[in-house]
């Protein structure tokens, strides 16, 4: 360890598990989702329909990772308020301090790390807002996706009982009028939001690599080991 640096814990084990579960799920969801929207590859197997189920496998994979997403969303929503480590909602309240911190991080970003007037030993306000946007997008995917899904259970029955489709209708039917009035609009919105999330991911990966390599903050270590090294600051 370089002198003048200290090790700070930034992510708990649970947070890291959630992060990687989400990352892997997302890659799977994008690949399978693009296939479902437009089945771009043909099956090369010459068997009868009964043996291959290409679309069925893609839909299966899509739904499985979607369910993982949905469950982690619930956990993340809980941790926003009740985490014993950091409570992200505290960084979302637009207090003077939070707004100033948000501004400082943003200025540091656009001035290429020229004015580092914020503490990087904890999750800053900019980071929290940025991740909140991601979670909002995910929740929107959850509602629109489940709305598209529940119409395959239109008999009102499912393998786990009638309560499940009933609950899905109750929880997601509002997305139809909100997106424009038809199931097609829900579908378009679900598809469109995927692009927003992919764009979000592009910036996220770039930002973390940049902070690690060029700004020498070692942030990538956080998501593997849970901690990073930060300069000791005189406070």
């Amino acid at each position, binding site marked *: 360890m370089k002198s003048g640096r200290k090790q700070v814990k930034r992510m708990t084990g649970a947070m890291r598990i959630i992060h990687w579960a989400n990352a892997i799920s997302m890659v799977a969801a994008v690949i399978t989702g693009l296939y479902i929207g437009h089945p771009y590859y043909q099956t090369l197997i010459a068997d009868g329909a009964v043996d291959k189920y290409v679309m069925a496998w893609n839909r299966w994979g899509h739904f499985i990772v979607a369910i993982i997403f949905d469950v982690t969303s619930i956990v993340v929503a809980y941790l926003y308020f009740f985490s014993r480590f950091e409570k992200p909602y505290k960084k979302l309240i637009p207090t003077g301090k939070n707004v100033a911190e948000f501004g400082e991080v943003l200025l540091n970003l656009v001035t290429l*790390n020229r004015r580092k007037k914020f503490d990087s030993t904890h999750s800053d306000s900019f980071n929290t807002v940025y991740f909140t946007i991601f979670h909002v997008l995910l929740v929107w995917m959850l509602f629109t996706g489940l709305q598209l899904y529940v119409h395959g259970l239109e008999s009102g029955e499912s393998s786990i009982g009638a309560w499940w489709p009933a609950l899905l209708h109750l929880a997601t039917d509002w997305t139809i009028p909100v997106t424009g009035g038809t199931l097609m609009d829900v579908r378009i919105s679900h598809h469109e939001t995927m692009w927003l999330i992919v764009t979000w991911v592009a910036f996220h990966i770039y930002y973390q690599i940049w902070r690690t390599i060029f700004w020498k903050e070692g942030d990538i270590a956080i998501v593997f080991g849970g901690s990073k090294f930060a300069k000791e600051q005189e406070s």
Partner: protein
Amino acid sequence: MAERIDGVRKLFTSKSARVDTNRGDLYYQQLFDTCRARLDALREQPAVNRLDFDSLLTDEGQDRREFMKWVSAVTAMLMLPPMFTPLVAEAAELMNRLPVVWLELQDCAGNSEALLRSDGPKIDEIVLDIISLEFHESLMAPSGHQAEKQLEDAMEHFKGNYLLFVEGSIPVGAGRDWCTIGASGETFLDHLNRVAENAAAVVAVGACATFGGIPAAAPNPTGAVGVMDVVKGKPVINIPACPANPANMVGVVLHYALTGQVPELDSLLRPKFAFGYRIHDNCERRAHFDAGEYVEEWGDEGAKNNFCLYKMGCKGPMTFNNCSIVRYNEGVNWPIGVGRGCIGCSEPDFWDKYAYERPMANANIKAPTGGVEKTVDQFGLGLLTAAGIGIGIHAVASAVAGKREEGGEG
């Protein structure tokens, strides 16, 4: 405990599209008694036309056995248990006590055509022959003032008792003054509202009357809307599709004759017995969808082998209708059966958002959102490119700035 679970289930399912096909013996016994009383009351009423169902059947070369086969099919379609079969038969026979007024507004008469298709009539059409069609501009002999008189008489005579079928959309925007009806030049809007006021219930038939259909497609020059947007304070039943399936029209009329009530409706006011299921879930090509076997272009090997039409733009996965079950033209065939995709004609905004066999991913449908998935993909790729360019500029600038800084330090 079971009661509580039932209560919770009821709470969750009350407004959903759930189709409950088994409501228990008690419910059906009560419904049976209600229907019995209703049919007895109907029998007491004088027939509004002199058509006799039995002799009509004989004239058309149908025997009683054929008829009873049809009756049990209809009973099943209405999701009633077999004990209702004799009541449904009776309701069909008493159909000549049910006055119907039919209005045509902004339409192509396709639904009238579907209703009256009489090339070798089957039981459906015979049943529809026997309803007392008191007014139908395209079918009746009188015209002009005489036709209007006929309508006035029917409205007066059957006040509060007739079923009003409406075909075609209603212009309420700039077009409301262009579209008038009859010698008095009454606008469609006023005409519909006046006739609907004394109706027992209003049945909107076809894509135009339900959700505006083709007249309401962008840019909607006449400001067309569906019946449910205009008629207030009356039960409205939507039977969308282009054209509406005669089987569903018969179903609604029979249900009304039998119970005196409108059938159970979904959130878009469509009868659940007909629109409670997705086409996709009952499609004969569904196995090919799951297998990833698609028609790639019209007339290819896949098309010859009846592969799934999803890639050709079939909208079956988003469309609610029973045409994959009851089919059209005497149950002979239906769009997907003849090798073309579903165009979602029973869904709202179908022309702008569903329409022809445009595959979703390649579609550039002119829609209020600016486009469908093709536009979304282009926009998304553009957004991602913009982010990439932004990242690139930031990266290069940072690298240059970083070197300068290091140089300064050293």
